[in-house]
């Protein structure tokens, strides 16, 4: 009993206890840092997942809009064949609005996509002008065959974009 008491009272024993305490603190501190880093990595991973989901949702929206644009172009082709010039004016305007909306909502899309949309917008505007002039004056009826050659190229171009965006969802 005296020995134990002497041991507890000795300076050496106190120093040993202090040393053990420091070691425990260091180990505990290291564990805390490691846990914190793991949590941060997990939080970052979660944030990245959320961002990826947001981007996929954006791509899905873009696919839907491009599909709508393509459907409208197909309808425009049919209306050209039917010489439904009055109805066409409305379709041109709707499609142009949609293409502008796609471009605005996807400002970070690659330049080739923007170029295709720009090309389609200009072609549609010029066709619209020709049709408008014809409707007003009843002179120089637009050539449906030539119009449809251009529309077919726009369909091919936009369909390519749609497929590329579709393939990038979830990738």
């Amino acid at each position, binding site marked *: 009993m005296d020995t134990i008491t002497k041991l507890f009272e000795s300076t050496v024993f106190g120093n040993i206890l202090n040393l053990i305490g420091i070691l425990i603190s260091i180990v505990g501190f290291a564990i805390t840092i490691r846990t914190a880093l793991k949590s941060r990595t997990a939080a970052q991973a979660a944030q990245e997942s959320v961002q990826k989901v947001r981007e996929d949702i954006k791509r899905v929206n873009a696919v839907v809009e491009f599909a709508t644009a393509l459907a409208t172009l197909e309808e425009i082709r049919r209306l050209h064949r039917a010489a439904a010039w009055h109805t066409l004016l409305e379709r041109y305007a709707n499609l*142009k609005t949609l293409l*502008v909306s796609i*471009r605005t909502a996807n400002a970070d899309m690659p*330049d080739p996509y*923007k*170029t*295709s949309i*720009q*090309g389609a*917008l*200009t*072609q*549609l*505007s*010029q*066709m619209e002008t*020709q049709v408008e002039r014809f409707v007003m004056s009843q002179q120089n009826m*637009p*050539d449906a065959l*030539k*119009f449809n*050659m*251009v529309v077919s*190229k726009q369909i091919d171009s936009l369909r390519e974009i749609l497929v590329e965006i579709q393939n990038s969802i979830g990738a």
Partner: protein
Amino acid sequence: MSYSKRAILVRRLLNGTKHGTILWEVTPEDEVFQTSIPNYSIRITYVRRLSDGSGAPVTDYIIQIYNQDARLIEEFSDVELSGETDDDTLAYGQMEEIYNYARRGALGLDKALDDILEALGPDLDNPGRLPF
């Protein structure tokens, strides 16, 4: 040599068209061809008129620039452009060349010729001649 921005544009269009980095497409209008970049489209065409002096028919080449709303924002002919360079004939020559290359590219003439030549088989009169 002094160049306006329009003159520089024409030179760059010619270089890009010749080297295939600028691609042209047909439009519903005869003899009008279009190329686009992300926020602009450029069209090239020509008009025929009678010369003011001699009354002989002349061809003027025209370039049009459309903005991202597909609105025409600029239009100029080779005649207007010739006043912006030191060489009066340069603009006409360059724009004529752009037009011809644009037409060939948009209509797929080069590819058509290649396909036809391939379908015709070897050149029997010049068997040793390389096909390119």
